[in-house]
């Protein structure tokens, strides 16, 4: 291993890329570190600025609630703002006063955030006394015995991750002890220029180690590993000294950017490659920055909240770069002025390092808990962006092993789905790719853009998906209801079939009817049925509740008809056949009425005039035939018209069953319907027969019987003919019935159409 590394070092002298073989993750870059600018200087004495700007929102999560008023006198460490909700549910941390003074305002200020947005902040005017409240957290200095106890202290102290995103530290810690087996200390500090962690390790190594030990004790972690980059020998020495006789292991890691990345350092220290999308906690590890450990120590031991931090003020534009333990809320500009800038600070300062930092929108933004460095690099002429030459340098540099050139290509083409497939969300935005790109393409910028685009697309897609699901659910419900209805209908039919088979012989008596009329009626009925098909989806819903109403109608009509028919049986015929107007709607209605009447007549005759029933049925049959045909035709017309209307407005499926096709087809495809109708007719006939049987007694029975027997016995032409005739009769009846139904349906359809 040693031989290998020395060989690599030799090679690296000629080809710097060889240094990449020395660490466990892919790529990485070796920028000019410029660390000595500030690291060579001693830590400066704290300055108390004229105003401290304390943004309420200093970290990931919710804004805490202000607990002070303008004009209040506060002391150092006093609580200024506190989470309003249960912080264990919604991320939020309190804000404390960094020094004593007066609250002069609570107003929106520009935040040190890439967006440059404004948010509420407490403005504190220091009085210079720096009076403090000791042990404001009320701790007894003992080590918390459970993760929850530790979490409570960390929350009250307002400690957030001080290395990067500022995730509230308490929220990183699991609730149960023993979940974390390895505690990692991030002392890599891989960004150029920044030296605050370096100096912290040099000066407060003991605090860091103690903080780590406290955390490990509370969490039940067995191992503590600290990784420090090899370019900080003084820090390594101090930390090793402080860690001697403790279980903290100090590991020196290669100096390569981005060694300080959480996943990169974890891999380097433990050999565990954190799985995609997993958090360190999921693999039993917890990594925190050295400054965070020091803050933990101060909170747990002395009850001190997080009100100041070590900040590097450096850059090529400053004559005297330095590190200082800066109060939260100190404006950047005040700190930069302390470093005697070489030229006027008319360019934006950078918060963070040159690789991952961002230009602040306003140089007066305050130091917050995550500010590790203030960088004053005068603007340099930017090289023109050239097209990507696919050289692959970016890919060789990417620590996550992505394909930056491909992601760039697709981002530029706005093919964001492809960018996502290339795992753009694994990109840690370290900037290595942009750093090496010979075409000077701001690659990271493209990925940030792509990420936000993709998120937006996803949000949109989710919304659409939700709407679609709702729609589908509705369709499914309708479909289900339809099927249930059909099932019920089928069951009914089955029952009818049984009956029919029993009384099929009975149909024989309704024989002598002109075939042509029957055929015409059948045709019309078929046409109607075909037409009805297109409507089934809507009308079936009404069918179920239509039946009783139709019956009611029929009963009513029957009463009337009974009276009428009793008085003038024959007169009704011409009257009813009159309405031949083109107004199909009324015709349909009339047809329905007629049909209902007829039915009622039949019933009424059955019940009221039992003696001459046969006669009457014969009569009514004749009239029915005629009426049925007419009404059927009219109904068919109406249906056709309706359909034409409906086809215009309704979907294409109905269109495919357009009137022409429907009227042409029925003979062939309505066989099933015919059977249905025949069955129904048979049922009706059976009913009649039953009535006849019971009321006409032996006479009719005797008349029928011989026919039956002959039909049964011989099964010759006559029987066939008879059967045919029976079928035709059945058909006719079916047609009649259908016409009635159709007419009723149309009525109800009309009623329904408007609300639809």
């Amino acid at each position, binding site marked *: 291993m040693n031989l290998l590394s020395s060989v690599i070092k030799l090679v690296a002298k000629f*080809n*710097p890329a060889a240094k990449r073989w020395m660490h466990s993750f*892919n790529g990485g*870059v070796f*920028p*000019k570190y410029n660390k000595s600018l500030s690291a060579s200087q001693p830590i400066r004495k704290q300055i108390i600025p004229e105003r401290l700007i304390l943004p309420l929102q200093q970290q990931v999560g919710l804004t805490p609630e202000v607990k002070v008023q303008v004009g209040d006198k506060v002391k150092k460490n006093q609580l200024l703002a506190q989470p309003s909700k249960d912080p264990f549910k919604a991320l939020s941390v309190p804000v404390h006063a960094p020094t004593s003074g007066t609250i002069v305002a609570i107003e929106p200020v520009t935040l040190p955030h*890439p967006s440059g947005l404004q948010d509420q902040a407490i403005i504190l005017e220091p009085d210079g006394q720096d009076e403090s409240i000791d042990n404001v957290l009320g701790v007894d200095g003992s080590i918390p015995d459970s993760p929850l106890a530790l979490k409570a202290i960390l929350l009250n102290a307002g400690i957030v991750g001080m290395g990067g995103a500022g995730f509230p530290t308490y929220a990183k810690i699991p609730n149960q002890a023993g979940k974390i087996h390895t505690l990692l200390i991030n002392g890599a500090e891989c960004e*150029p220029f920044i030296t605050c962690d370096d100096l912290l390790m040099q000066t407060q190594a003991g605090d860091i180690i103690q903080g780590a030990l406290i955390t490990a004790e509370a969490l039940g972690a067995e191992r503590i590993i600290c990784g420090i980059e090899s370019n900080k020998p003084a820090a390594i020495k101090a930390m090793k000294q402080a860690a001697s006789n403790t279980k903290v292991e100090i590991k020196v890691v290669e100096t390569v950017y981005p060694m300080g990345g959480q*996943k990169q350092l974890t891999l380097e220290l433990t050999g565990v*490659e*954190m*799985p*995609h999308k*997993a958090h360190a906690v999921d693999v039993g590890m917890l990594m925190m920055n050295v400054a965070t450990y020091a803050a933990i120590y101060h909170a747990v031991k002395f009850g001190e909240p997080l009100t100041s931090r070590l900040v590097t003020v450096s850059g090529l534009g400053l004559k005297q770069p330095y590190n200082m333990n800066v109060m939260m809320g100190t404006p950047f500009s005040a700190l930069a002025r302390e470093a005697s800038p070489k030229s006027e600070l008319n360019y934006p300062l*950078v918060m*963070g390092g*040159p*690789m*991952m*930092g*961002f*230009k602040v929108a306003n140089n007066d933004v305050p130091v917050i808990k995550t500010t590790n460095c203030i*960088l004053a*690099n005068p603007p340099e002429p*930017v*090289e023109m*962006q*050239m*097209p*990507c*030459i*696919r*050289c*692959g*340098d970016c*890919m060789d540099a990417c*620590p*996550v*092993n*992505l*394909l930056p*050139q*491909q992601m760039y290509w697709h981002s*530029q083409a706005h093919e964001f789905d492809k960018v996502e497939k*290339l*795992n753009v969300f*694994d990109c840690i*935005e370290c*900037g290595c790719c*942009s*750093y*090496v790109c*010979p*075409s*000077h393409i*701001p690659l*990271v*910028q493209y990925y*940030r*853009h792509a990420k936000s685009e993709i998120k937006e697309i996803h949000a949109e897609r989710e919304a659409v998906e939700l709407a679609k699901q709702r729609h589908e659910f509705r369709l499914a419900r309708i479909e289900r209801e339809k099927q249930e209805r059909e099932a019920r209908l089928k069951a009914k039919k089955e029952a009818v079939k049984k009956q029919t088979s029993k009384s099929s012989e009975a149909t024989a008596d309704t024989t002598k009817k002109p075939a042509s009329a029957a055929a015409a009626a059948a045709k019309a009925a078929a046409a109607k049925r075909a037409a009805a098909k297109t409507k089934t989806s809507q009308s079936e819903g009404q069918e179920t509740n239509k039946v009783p109403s139709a019956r009611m109608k029929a009963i009513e009509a029957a009463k009337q008809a009974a009276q009428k028919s009793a008085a003038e049986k024959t007169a009704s015929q011409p009257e009813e056949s009159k309405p031949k107007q083109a107004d199909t709607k009324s015709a349909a209605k009339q047809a329905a009425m007629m049909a209902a009447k007829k039915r009622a007549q039949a019933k009424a005759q059955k019940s009221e005039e039992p003696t001459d029933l046969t006669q009457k049925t014969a009569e009514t049959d004749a009239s029915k035939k005629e009426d049925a045909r007419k009404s059927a035709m009219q109904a068919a017309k109406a249906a056709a018209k309706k359909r034409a209307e409906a086809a215009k407005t309704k979907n294409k499926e109905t269109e495919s069953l357009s009137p022409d096709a429907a009227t042409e087809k029925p003979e062939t495809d309505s066989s099933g319907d015919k059977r249905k109708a025949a069955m129904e007719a048979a049922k009706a006939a059976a009913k009649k027969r039953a009535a006849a049987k019971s009321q006409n007694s032996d006479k009719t029975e005797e008349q029928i019987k011989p026919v039956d027997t002959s039909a049964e016995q011989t099964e010759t032409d006559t029987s066939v003919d008879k059967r045919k005739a029976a079928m035709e009769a059945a058909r006719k009846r079916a047609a009649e019935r259908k016409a009635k139904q159709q007419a009723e349906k149309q009525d109800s359809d009309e009623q329904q159409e408007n609300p639809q």
Partner: protein
Amino acid sequence: MNQPTVSSSPYAHNNQNVRKVMLQVQIAAFPALLAHIYLFGFGIVIQWMLALTTALAVEYFMLKLRGRPVLPFITDMSALITITGLVFCIPPDAPWWIVVTGSAFALIFGKHLYGGLGYNPFNPAMLGYAFLLISFPVQMTQWTMPVEFTQHTLDFMQSAQYIFTGHIPDVSLDMYTGATPLNEMRTGLSQGQPITDTLSKDMQTTLGGLNSWAWINLAFLLGGLWMLYSGVISWQYPIGFLGTLAIISFVFNQVDPELYPPMDVVLLTGGTMLAAFFIITDPVTASTTPKGKLIYAAGIAVLVYVIRNWGAFPDGIAFAILLMNIAVPLIDQYTQPRVFGHKR
């Protein structure tokens, strides 16, 4: 280009740029250029200057036509690399219009019509070369004989005269032109002469044990090694290409030395080294994934060998490269590296 306007991190750069990369490639070609002048005369210098003039004119015209800023793109030096690659493939004393049409074709059809640098799927130099080879096969295969045959090379003025007028007064030109060794092997084979005979005939006239072609190839190798060392090109290209070619030629030579030339001859004839370090390393048209680069290079090697030995052209490098250019998107897609934290 729709580039975002807000500039964001990183605010640091390693100060590499396209121009520097291209310049390094150009510098790496110098040893070969010098060797070429020594062995074949000043023809190549004239050709190179002709090509450069053509390139500048074409670049200017095309950039104007495409509405692009002329200065930054004309100085990106990518055209220089293209014509350098092309000029080495053209017979040094070929008529002037050969190189002019070749470079113009390469730049216009190979680069600008696809959207300029970075967007071309085919290697422009090879596209130009293939175009010339198909259009003017006679002129393209009549090579200037190297110095070991002619004992002295044409001087600058003679070359210029020959290139522009097609003849030089008082000089018999037959002596100066002939076929390349690859061509000779091919004709030899077709006349039933085993490779070994052709080669031994060649070997009578050598320069320090190697013929001129080998010297040129070695010069390219030198420049290539320097580029490798300075990180301008990826190691996968030359290793994949030369390695595969070496293995195939070794195996076939063992099978039948009469029919298949030995390994060192394969590696040091024609444009082998030129291709290995200067042509297939053109990143725009090559595969970009680490594994993909190897596959791409190896694929070219196989095709080169196949075309040289069984194809219709004496040196199949141009066609091999163009064919593999087509396969690049596919190779890239199937050789994506494993992303950190992801399972394969």
